[in-house]
């Protein structure tokens, strides 16, 4: 509307109402606070999910990748193999399907092909030397974060290359070698010294503690549990990890026509599906039911689709040779009362024996830590070590990854490596560990290295779904991950599925509610009947003009992303 210059009136007959401080009516007060999104608070690797998705939404994938790399050096890897607990925690989950965070992460990780690695800038050299034992995801994450903090890092790896389980156990159809290589480029960029072929014993570690300012032990859990049954030592009976390790070598193993896999975890699934691709007919024996299987649900589903036979409630009793092949004598089980792990205990059913023929038997009933060290016993003080972020009884020795009391996924390994690096740095720089822990833990869950480095404070509260105002979000279809038909994928070790296309990723990122982070949407300002919202953000959030705010609470109710809460006045 065009406006002509208006004449000021000669006299004002009225004054404004500013003298009337209606804030005195208030008994509730809106509190504006940046909060943690539930996805970010639960992420085992501590990915800055809302921040990177915000950049992805804009199509700024360089910045998105840079955000992730602050916390996690392995986005291409995690985007593929992480069981993404973030998506189950997503506040969109019950509305119209969670945001496919893993697909966005995967795209950002792969975007390094175009953008470059986007490694954050390294802090000035501290002159401190840190040794990391093991170049698996935990050791790599620890080395990465320690190097970013300016420490001089040396990794000692027993095998001939970096990657640990990423290169030696996870089959290529889940994680192609090129993907791992892309994420591992930081080793050279950050001048991390990688010494391969170094087998380290417990006494070596104690010696190293004298030569280095700190030693992080990330040796993994490689010792397969034994079945403890007759015939286990026969040729053709192999532990799952060993089988998978051979797969990654030059000469793939020949499992023969029939393979029996014993166990229900991820190693069992990987071994079974790899054997299937090598031409075997595969049967998985598991002593409980499908519901109790520890493997990722997606892995179980894909194994079923590929035609792997599952014999639930079945356990081996004995393995016999019968000519060239073997016979696995099994027994049926039934579920009894719960055991220590909270799962029902399998109880043998008398007289239910049956036999399975097998050329190869793969045992995959779990792995444990091979290292036996006085400063660390994997079965004791698990909780203490976990709460201590890898600190042990020896103040120069730290533990992370599968070697420690952590959940055994790549993302957990990345997170525990980061925690150990922060614990080391806090110790070396004389910071109060408990205060650091308090400051950088998001909503009591994930840990942020970027916040550690910047000295900022992580949001303490997590946005609950009740705090989200769904009225401001249109229902939109979730990005469905590309997949490959089962009969196509069992032909070889080619990667299953594909990274989503850029526009699909941007559309998916646009579905993010950005829980807990003010986007300056203006709802609080627009709907305030007392014009009492100060929109100029302070600490990233608006504020209230307490002189006039009557405390009606509309702002809190209409905030789409749970930033505003009403609190009792004078409390």
């Amino acid at each position, binding site marked *: 509307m065009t406006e002509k210059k208006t004449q000021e009136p000669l006299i004002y007959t009225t004054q*404004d109402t500013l003298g009337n401080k209606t804030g005195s009516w208030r008994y509730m007060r809106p509190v504006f606070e940046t909060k943690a999104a539930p996805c970010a608070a639960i992420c085992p690797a501590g990915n800055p999910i809302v921040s990177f998705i915000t950049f992805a939404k804009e199509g700024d994938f360089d910045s998105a990748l840079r955000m992730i790399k602050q916390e996690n050096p392995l986005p291409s890897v995690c985007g593929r193999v992480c069981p993404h607990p973030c998506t189950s925690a997503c506040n969109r989950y019950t509305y119209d399907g969670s945001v496919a965070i893993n697909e966005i992460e995967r795209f950002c990780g792969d975007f390094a092909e175009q953008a470059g690695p986007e490694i954050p800038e390294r802090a000035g050299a501290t002159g401190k030397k840190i040794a990391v034992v093991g170049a698996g995801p935990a050791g790599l994450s620890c080395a990465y974060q320690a190097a970013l903090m300016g420490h001089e890092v040396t990794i000692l790896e027993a095998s001939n290359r970096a990657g640990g389980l990423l290169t030696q156990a996870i089959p290529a159809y889940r994680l192609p070698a090129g993907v791992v290589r892309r994420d591992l480029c930081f080793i050279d960029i950050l001048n991390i010294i990688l010494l391969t072929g170094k087998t380290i014993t417990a006494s070596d570690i104690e010696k190293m503690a004298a030569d280095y300012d700190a030693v992080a032990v990330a040796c993994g859990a490689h010792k397969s549990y034994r079945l403890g049954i007759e015939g286990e030592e026969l040729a053709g009976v192999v532990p799952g990890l060993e089988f998978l390790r051979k797969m990654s070598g030059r000469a793939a193993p020949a499992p023969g026509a029939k393979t029996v896999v014993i166990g229900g975890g991820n190693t069992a699934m990987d071994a079974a599906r790899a054997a299937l691709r090598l031409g075997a007919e595969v049967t998985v024996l598991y002593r409980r039911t499908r519901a109790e299987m520890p493997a990722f649900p997606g892995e179980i589903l894909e194994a079923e689709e590929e035609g792997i036979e599952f014999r639930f409630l079945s356990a081996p009793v004995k393995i016999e040779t019968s000519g060239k092949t073997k016979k696995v004598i099994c027994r049926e089980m039934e579920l009894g009362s719960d055991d220590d792990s909270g799962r029902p205990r399998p109880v043998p059913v008398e007289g239910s024996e049956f036999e399975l023929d097998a050329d190869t038997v793969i045992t995959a009933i779990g792995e444990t830590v091979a290292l036996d060290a006085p400063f660390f016993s994997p079965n004791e003080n698990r909780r203490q070590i976990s709460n201590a972020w890898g600190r042990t009884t020896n103040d120069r020795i730290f533990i992370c990854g599968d070697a420690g009391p952590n959940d055994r996924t790549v993302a957990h390994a990345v997170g525990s490596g980061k925690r150990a690096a922060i614990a080391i740095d806090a110790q070396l720089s004389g910071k109060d560990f408990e205060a650091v822990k308090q400051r950088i833990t998001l909503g009591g869950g994930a840990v942020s290295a970027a916040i550690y480095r910047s000295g900022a404070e992580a949001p303490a509260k997590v946005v609950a779904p009740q705090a989200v105002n769904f009225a401001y979000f249109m229902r939109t279809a979730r990005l469905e991950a590309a997949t490959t038909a089962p009969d196509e994928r069992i032909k070889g070790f080619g990667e299953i599925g594909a990274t989503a296309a850029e526009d699909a990723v941007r559309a998916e990122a646009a579905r993010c509610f950005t829980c807990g982070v003010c986007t300056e949407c203006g709802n609080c300002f627009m709907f305030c009947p007392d014009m009492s919202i100060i929109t100029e953000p302070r600490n990233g959030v608006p504020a209230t003009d307490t002189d006039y705010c009557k405390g009606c609470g509309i702002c809190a*109710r209409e905030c789409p992303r749970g930033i505003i809460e009403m609190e009792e006045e004078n409390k």
Partner: protein
Amino acid sequence: MNVTVEQEFVCRGHVACPGCGAVLAMRYVLDVLGKKTIVVLPACCWSVINNRYPTAAVKVPLFHTAFETAACVATGVRAALDMKGDNDTHVLAWAGDGGTFDIGLQALSGAAERNDDIIYVCYDNEAYMNTGIQRSSSTPFGAWTTTTPAKTFKTKQKKNIMDIMAAHRIPYAATATIAYPEDLMNKVRYAAGIRGTRFLHIFCPCPTGWKTAPDITVELSRNAVRARAFPLYEVFDGTRYRLTHEPAQEDRMPIAEYIKPQRRFAHLTEAEIQVMQDHADEEWGRLMKVTETWPAG
């Protein structure tokens, strides 16, 4: 939110109840009309909200007048401005539902019949809230008010003021509500750009009179639209209709859910709520039919 309030013409320190919907309506409307506006205000909540002389919360000229006279005083102000040669100042009659549906209806009808060049806003909070929550002809079926206590709640349906205004064949009549500021401001902008009698029916929940928590004012406004108790539409020349917001299928809600947090309906039985639902369905069906039969271009 795709819109914002650029200029505040409602001053902090006004004395509306916490969570008042009528303040938001005034704030949005004046932002669009701008400072060259004269407000004509009959007795209504806003005559209190504006605060006592010599203070005023509204920062444009405002004329307090008698209950039944909003439209005719606006007509007079318009005539005076026209005589001065000022034909770009908006004259805004701002009345509540009592001052529009009941007491001021005769004056409004007269102005509309003459097609006087005014913008008439009825901010509707569904009872005489200012004087102590008495029933008006805008109060919906089933509601408690101080003159229709729960035992003998109001048994007549809400009067359809939009049909009355459309019957005058005025150039523009529209419904709007505070939960949809963009829609509301677009309608004010359209009204400001044309001449003649323009009527806006703005639905404004009232925490005090509806016995609701002050924080759900906007939510109730949104839910009224989602429950199709208050459809958003416009009528051109009293004959051509356009729906401006149709709630998505999955956003729709039954009347029962819309009235649940409003304690003015707390006494209703399921059968009585069904009467409200049937009425809303019937009205919606009728609106669908007219918008299909006589669509606006």
